[in-house]
């Protein structure tokens, strides 16, 4: 198999896998911090036991997120050496800042939090988990500054010999509009992921009538509010992100909609079976005007289609195929949006119960809520697949193509990538199985008894 395809598969595997764990870290860290703050303020032991219970699940998940993140830090050098040479002057900066500003904080203060229960005063101990939560979200900011440069390059110039992009304006990089639509989307996605995991585990305990019903009611109520706020934010942020993309990467939007021809007003596809070779629909159900409405908040306005954009890009960038894989973009977008809509529905349903302090659910509803935790994982993964696949053939939009970014085959052969892929697949499978086993075990075990909570986490 060719090196480019293998390198892309490996990147997809390692980054999607890494992002199974990151959003839960973002969401749960905040929840644990809030719980511990509640304990410090009220002195109520239940909050401390809840802190330890959710903290334990957070830690198991966090460990896998951290170790899979180490791979991310180095794989630009491993498989994408031409990319690293081309863009290191810019892309390396947010990565280094992320490590210096966020990873150090996160890992150091998490160490203090885990081992410092009897060494720090209560408020100081609670402060450490807040620092972890803030640092985790800060790390998301910096990595998205890096990613946003790939999506919508700003603040750079090409070097004199054209061999690399050089940073000329750090603030432009940081205040790239793409960052400020993507970052809220990702953080809200993290909240949502945390929320639905909290909901699922709490519902399970309520259904099974395990001890500590009250504690899990508190968790569920919190999870419900969290889920509602999270999904609302994620949808709003996603909406603004799409509008931003129309300006910077209209091709991604067109591919996500399987919009072959430019339309004004543009209709939105609900279900399309398309022919990617001939760039046409085989079968489609569309809502007239809806895409224009989503794009411009009114039922008119042109949304450019794939064919027109292809012609335009050929004029700008020279001959070539500038159309990303449409089916993958289209379906990942639908899965993300579908999952998001479903989550909002579930969150509203849940709020309807818990805000009236009702914790008895019809069996279909409790089943739905129990399994709803899979939805954010689906949405997170498909969201990133759309973001990265929809940008193809570019690795840095308009500047560098993915095919020109890979490490030369003379340096890293396909055999070596197959070896590394096998190694990662093996160890990631082990991580996934162990992680699920341990989280399930801790979740089922429930809260530790009050007197022996010391020394359990």
């Amino acid at each position, binding site marked *: 198999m060719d090196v480019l395809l293998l390198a892309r598969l490996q990147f997809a595997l390692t980054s999607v896998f890494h992002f199974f764990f990151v959003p839960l870290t973002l969401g749960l860290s905040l929840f644990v911090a809030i719980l511990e703050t509640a304990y410090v303020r009220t002195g109520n032991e239940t909050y401390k036991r809840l802190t330890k219970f959710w903290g334990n699940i957070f830690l*198991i998940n966090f*460990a896998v997120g*951290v*170790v*899979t993140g*180490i*791979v991310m*830090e*180095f794989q*630009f*050098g*491993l498989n994408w*050496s031409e990319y*690293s*040479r081309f863009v*290191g*002057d*810019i892309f*390396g*900066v947010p990565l*280094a*800042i992320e*490590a*210096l*500003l966020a*990873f*150090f904080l996160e*890992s*150091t*203060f*998490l*160490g*203090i939090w*885990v*081992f*410092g229960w009897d*060494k*720090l005063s209560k408020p100081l101990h609670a402060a450490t988990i807040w620092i972890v939560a803030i640092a985790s979200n800060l790390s998301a900011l910096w990595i998205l500054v890096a990613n946003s440069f790939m999506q919508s390059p700003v603040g750079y110039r090409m*070097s004199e010999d054209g061999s690399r992009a*050089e*940073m000329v304006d750090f603030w432009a990089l940081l205040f790239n509009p793409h960052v400020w639509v993507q970052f809220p989307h990702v953080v809200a996605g993290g909240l949502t992921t945390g929320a639905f995991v909290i909901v699922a585990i709490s519902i399970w305990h309520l259904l099974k009538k395990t001890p500590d019903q009250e504690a899990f009611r508190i968790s569920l109520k919190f999870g419900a509010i969290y889920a509602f706020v999270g999904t609302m934010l994620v949808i709003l942020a996603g909406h603004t992100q799409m509008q931003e993309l129309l300006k910077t990467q209209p091709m991604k939007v067109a591919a996500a909609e399987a919009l072959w021809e430019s339309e004004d007003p543009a209709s939105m596809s609900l279900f399309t079976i398309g022919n990617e070779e001939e760039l046409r629909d085989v079968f489609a159900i569309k809502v007239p005007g809806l895409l224009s409405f989503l794009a411009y908040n009114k039922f008119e306005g042109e949304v450019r289609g794939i064919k027109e954009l292809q012609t335009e890009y050929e004029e700008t960038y020279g001959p070539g195929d500038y159309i990303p894989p449409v089916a993958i973009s289209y379906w990942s977008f639908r899965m993300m949006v579908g999952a998001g809509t479903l989550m909002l529905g579930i969150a509203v349903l849940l709020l309807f119960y818990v805000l009236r302090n009702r914790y008895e659910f019809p069996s279909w509803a409790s089943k739905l809520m129990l399994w709803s935790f899979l939805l954010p994982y689906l949405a997170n993964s498909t969201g990133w697949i759309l973001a990265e696949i929809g940008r193809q053939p570019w690795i840095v939009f308009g500047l560098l193509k993915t095919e020109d970014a890979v*490490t*030369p085959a003379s*340096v*890293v052969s396909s055999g*070596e990538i197959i*070896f*590394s892929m096998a*190694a*990662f697949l093996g*160890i990631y499978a082990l*991580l996934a199985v*162990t992680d699920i086993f*341990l989280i399930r*075990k*801790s979740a089922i075990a429930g809260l530790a008894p009050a007197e022996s909570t*010391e*020394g*359990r*986490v």
Partner: protein
Amino acid sequence: MELETLQIIWFILVAVLFTGFFILEGFDYGVGILLPFIGRDDKERRMLINTIGPFWDGNEVWLITAGGAMFAAFPEWYATLFSGFYPALILMLVALILRGVAFEFRSKSENPAWRNAWDWAIFIGSALPAILWGVALANIIRGVPIDQDMNYTGGFFTLLNPYALLCGIATLSIFTLHGAVFLNLKTGGNLQERSLGTAKKAWLPAALLSLLFMFFTYAETDLYERLGVNPGIIPTFSVIALVAVIFMLNAKSSGWAFIMTTLAIGLSTITIFLELFPRVMVSSTNPEWSLTIYNASSSAYTLGIMSIVALLFVPLVLAYQIWTYWIFRKRITADSELEY
């Protein structure tokens, strides 16, 4: 600031990050390597892990930051090194993954077989990187085949030359010694006694292998041309520090012994960077094609931004990491409250 000044500053900063990394992660690799041998039952092993529990993750971030700093300041170095040393780095990553989760996972089940398996994962995850770092460093200073486009042209087995393997075993033994000395400093009772014995036993191989490595470094690299017969005060003091370790151990002065292993590792790392400067990767194909801080660096603007960031945040990081060591300064004894 001038581009050249910035390039030198960033060479120094990368060197500082690696020096910090080897000193800090060095002892927790050592603890990981010794874990199955010094810890005779589950409680002892838990105590050993808890000596590094609050620190190891923060220590590892020194590496992540060094990687990030290389990427930002010397992208060509980052690209050439990690693509060139591909299989070695993959092995290292797999080991670090295993080790990282093992610390977290081992105590989540009471099953002895489970715990034992993860303890060995910690051992492998610590020993393998300890060796691989030595192999990588030796190859970087000895030189590897690099063409004029800065691409590595050797294979995996090019890296496994006797000189590099010797260095791998030397770093393994030094980190083991460093870990034993650290345990002697951080534990009380039986474990303190046992780790003292281990440190004394580990000293001789560590010292001999290091001397052997130094000897071969004169033969295998251009150290002699660059630094002369008397390489200067830094390498000399690293040897003195290493020799001093055994005297401190015999005097049961665990704090000083730890300072000495720290100095030995720190000064050796600095020596390696001195030997390299201003090169960052030596081409054995043609010295002209070596990567240097001048042809591998980012632009003056980027280095300037990064310098400001480093100036603001490195002191902060140091401050709170030192604070962590202060919080957990007590020795861990059989009576300590153990967090799992």
